């Protein structure tokens, strides 16, 4: 079952640590959103594989935007 990884705040994607096809684990740090001088990590929601990645470094995102889809195992 696939799960969405969602932006918890608006800001700029400052770091992406995952790639499409990569195996990932629940609670692994996936990327960072920079806003209001702070860097907020976004964590992988479940064990699985990165099926889709919708953002790259430098992208602006809004709260609730889907950042990636993780195909669960």
């Amino acid at each position, binding site marked *: 079952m696939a799960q969405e990884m969602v932006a918890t*705040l608006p800001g700029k994607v400052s770091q992406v640590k995952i790639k499409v096809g990569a195996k990932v684990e629940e*609670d692994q740090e996936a990327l960072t959103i920079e806003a209001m001088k*702070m860097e907020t990590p976004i964590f*992988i929601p479940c064990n699985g594989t990165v099926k889709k990645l919708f953002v790259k470094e430098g992208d602006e995102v809004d709260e609730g935007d889907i950042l990636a889809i993780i195909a669960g195992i």
Partner: protein
Amino acid sequence: MRPYFEKMTAFGHELKKGRLKSSQENLQKLKDAESKIQIEVERVKMVGLPEEKINARGQMTVWQRLEYLLDPGTWCPLHTLYNPADNEQGTTNVIDGLGKIAGKWAVVIGFDNKVLAGAWLPGQSENILRGTDLAKRLHIPLVWLVNCSGANLPEQEKFYANRRGAGTPLFRHAELEQLGIPVLAGIYGTNPAGGGYHGISATILFAHKDCNIAVGGAGIVSGMAPKGEFNLDTAEEIIDKAGKFKATPPGTAKTHYDETGFFRYVFETESDVLDGLKDYMKDLPSFHPKFYRVAQSREPRFPSQDLYHLLPMEPKKVYDFDEVLARLVDSSEHMEFRPDYGPEIYTGLCKIDGFLTACIGNRQGYLGKDYPEYADYAGMGGKVYRQGLIKMNEFVTLCGRDRIPIIWLQDTTGVDVGDDAEKAELLGLAMSLIYSIQQTDNPMMLLMLRKGTASSHYFMGGPTANRHNAFTIGTAASEIYVMHGETAAVATYSRRLVKEKEAGRPLEPIIERMNRLAREYHENSRPLFCAQKGLIDEIVPLSDLRKYLVAFAGAAYQNPKSICPHHQMILPRIIKG
């Protein structure tokens, strides 16, 4: 009140493998930083004469005395790296901290007899005053290991006089005694002048047979009236007189046991002195822990090692404060006060070693587009807003009423600023919090998790609240400054940049100054700097933080000045509703 406290609300989560793996780099950074700090701590321990040389004289070092005196596993050192006057020895020459002796908490201070025979050095009196303040704040005994050769004479102008100079601790000892707080002193070695007064200023004196205390030492007694200069004749005279007095230094144990009776006890061996202190500590007033405990002492449900995965070394990185707190308090349980108000601030009742303790901390991260409610911008934890200030004011006031010791956990970037913030009364509410703290008489401690910045470092129980702040500990990630260095550089040089630009002059020299200022801010906010200057009282490894919390809670409840019966507390009822 068992139903309130025996089982409180559990919080926190077990860390998943993904988190543990992806935070390995952070763990390594924190461990590396802690290792560097530990190297400095070891250097302070090794300073001066080697242990073997002291032992060969039939003496123990201050470290050996401490190890013998203290209950195993209870020592929480403070001010190990404190060296505000930048002494070449790297120390103020006293070792102090909180520890248990014969089952009871005490503040313990000892002169380092490896360094200039325990001399007074610059910065030492300020260090000692932190110890006497701690004993006063926690209302627990002060135990001295006196072995002090008096003032290091070539540097006397740096510490002898002044309002908080080397004589001030003697007044503090008298103050403690007048407050009913005993000062016990084990006395070793030669203690002339300042050393003698340190010995005599205690409540009960436990002397080693070879020690002395005296108004002046042999060197002073053999001195002559000033003659304007020294020459060969006066040198010969000095040699003659000093030789005589060296043979019989004034104020021996015999004099002060048989003649003056100042020494309550004289002991044959060094360890006998320490046994005497232990024996006395057993009988000093204290409540049995069961009198104040609200539940059985329990460890947190999650390992302290998790803290290395949770607390980012990187100062801008957001983390979950509640998960950190869950690794510090008993059973990872709490009763949160007003969880639906002031989301940037955590306020709650927790248990530390079975004792009821209040915790206040900065929650990190995005607070949603609708908060703060008075502005059209979103809030970010670490900053403090109107609701958080009101909540802290209420909580502190209620803790004061219920006599609950407070642990502050700071990681703050300051108070919200701008015209909206002014209209929201933040300036007045921040000062109100200082007023609220001051009108309580609760012991408080501060754990500087990471950042201490701007006025929130003051009003969130920082060292500046020094009548209430018993002590402040930091971590390898701590940093304290009025504002970020780059912000300070902009504030300092922005107008100058405009002027230079308008005048057609090159901007590079100003830019270089700005970079230099930012670098200085960084260097002067590091944990080692903070410890050396006393901005924090000790840098503590994350795995040992709970030990200091246990020491604080146990000491605060050992013999408090004022009691609120558990069943008459109002704060737990307000939380329950």
